[in-house]
């Protein structure tokens, strides 16, 4: 009986494991190997093993990479606190007992299902210089002097992209926070009511402390989202103007598929992956210690 069960398990997992092995694990390991070589896709000569040279060049010599790194950090530093605070507020509002709640939830979560490339097209259009609704709106409210070629000007392009990422980030993160809020037992708020707490006190002393789990998740998603931002930038600016919106992902992608320096690109991709893994490991640790204290 036991023998039998043992065997069937392997049959059940075989299709999944073989596909994941050949199209995930193997490429991930191959990529690590390539990152130690000077592999160029269009070059017919055999790639040479050059150990950490790609990594050293990227981190210490390649100013374009460091600039892309800076922009990725900038996106994270600006958008993350805003997304976190705004989506917490939105989630708290969506947890109130009011009429038409489901309509509000639907409206606020909807951006989640608009695919990245379609929303990039829409936003590019919103920002557009002559036909864009943003400039048109500014003119109508007599702020015409603020009109701008938002994505074309090196000074504003990155901020225009950050604004869009905040728009899409709020939808995801308010779902995460709302999940945490729903899990908070009603009795705590009732007890608070008896003690005569006001709205602000409830938020600071009951809601926020009990949302530690969602907070940590939101920050993992925040890191990952900032490092993985690609489609919107690729479509809206392609990294331009003057490389001001070049981020780690677009940099890596261009190295891999435009100049075909795949060994170098793999090293750059691995730096991204390592950052993500370190940060999520750190976050998991924090989550664990929080649980331990509780």
């Amino acid at each position: 009986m036991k023998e039998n069960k043992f065997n069937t398990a392997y049959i059940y997992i075989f299709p999944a494991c073989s596909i994941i092995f050949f199209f995930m694990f193997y490429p991930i390991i191959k990529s690590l190997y390539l990152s130690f070589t000077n592999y160029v896709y269009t070059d017919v000569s055999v790639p040479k093993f050059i150990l950490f040279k790609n990594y050293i060049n990227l981190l210490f010599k390649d100013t374009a990479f460091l600039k892309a790194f800076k922009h990725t950090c900038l996106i994270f530093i600006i958008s993350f606190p805003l997304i976190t605070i705004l989506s917490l507020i939105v989630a708290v509002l969506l947890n109130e007992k009011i009429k038409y709640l489901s309509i509000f939830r639907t409206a606020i979560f909807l951006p989640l299902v608009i695919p990245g490339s379609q929303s990039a097209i829409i936003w590019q259009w919103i920002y557009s210089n002559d036909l864009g609704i943003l400039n048109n709106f500014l003119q109508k409210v007599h702020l015409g002097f603020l009109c701008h070629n938002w994505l074309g000007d090196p000074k504003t392009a990155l901020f225009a992209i950050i604004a869009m990422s905040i728009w899409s980030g709020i939808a995801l993160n308010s779902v995460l926070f709302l999940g945490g809020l729903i899990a908070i037992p009603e009795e705590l708020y009732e007890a608070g009511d008896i003690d005569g707490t006001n709205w602000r006190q409830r938020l600071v002393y009951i809601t926020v402390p009990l949302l530690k789990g969602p907070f940590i998740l939101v920050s993992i998603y925040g890191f990952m989202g900032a490092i993985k931002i690609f489609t919107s930038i690729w479509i809206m600016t392609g990294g331009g103007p003057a490389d001001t919106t070049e981020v780690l992902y677009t940099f890596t992608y261009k190295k891999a598929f435009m100049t075909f320096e795949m060994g170098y690109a793999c090293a750059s991709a691995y730096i991204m992956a390592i950052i993500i893994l370190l940060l999520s490991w750190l976050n998991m640790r924090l989550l664990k210690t929080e649980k331990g204290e509780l």
Partner: protein
Amino acid sequence: MNKKILNKIFIYFSLCFVSFVSLFPSLWILLTSLKSEKEIHSSNIHLIPQNPNFENYLNVFKELPDLITYIKNSTIITGIVVISTLIIASFAGYAFARMKFKCSSVLLGSILFVITIPAVVFLIPIYTMEANLGILNTYIGLIIPYIASSLPFAIFIMRGTYRGISNSIEEAAIIDGCSSFQLFYKIMVPLGIQGIITVAVLTFLSIWGEFILAFSLVEESRMRTLPVGIVLLKGEGGSWSYGLLSAAVIISIIPSVILFLILQRYFVRGIMQGAIKG
């Protein structure tokens, strides 16, 4: 009492504002698609179409015949990926939830680890691999990587679903003489239907909108999927017809929006589940 009413007004007002901001981009495109080309290009933009009509929707397939190809490609690819992922993940999720076998936790751990890796890491070797196999620019060349990248999360959700089913049902079935496979497809699959819908919805949405792999692994126009194709349509003419383009954008997001409106519950739960345990 007065304060309470004020509070309510404040809540409604803020929610209306946030909803407006979050819906605005899609709403604007929807309204634009109902405008004539002349109205779109006039210097004074009205949010509401002055003379709403469906002209753009009637013309879009005639003027942009490629759009039909893109829709066809996306439908075939997404359909096959969703169905295959469901079947494969149901089996694997069941095994991880209910069966004991060597290395199960190590295997599961490494499958879940894959979720965090940015796509560009495995994309580069997949590209060279597919070039060697000669399957760039084919359906299969996109379908397999899509299944591979959808599986980890799908397995995770299915495992959670099957773990939630009570042991006693399984025991009763075994006493009644069910074989392992019968137990799986006659009892476990119907009981796990919620997880199956969640996986179907999340997989559909992520594949229907996927850009990076579709953009890199397909170079021929006739094999393009919708998200990539629409960007190309926009690029081709540059300044051409925004009315048609917005109609095309609306058509391409309608399936996702309808699915979301019908199955929102599953979608939201899927994200929360993934978040809480992931």
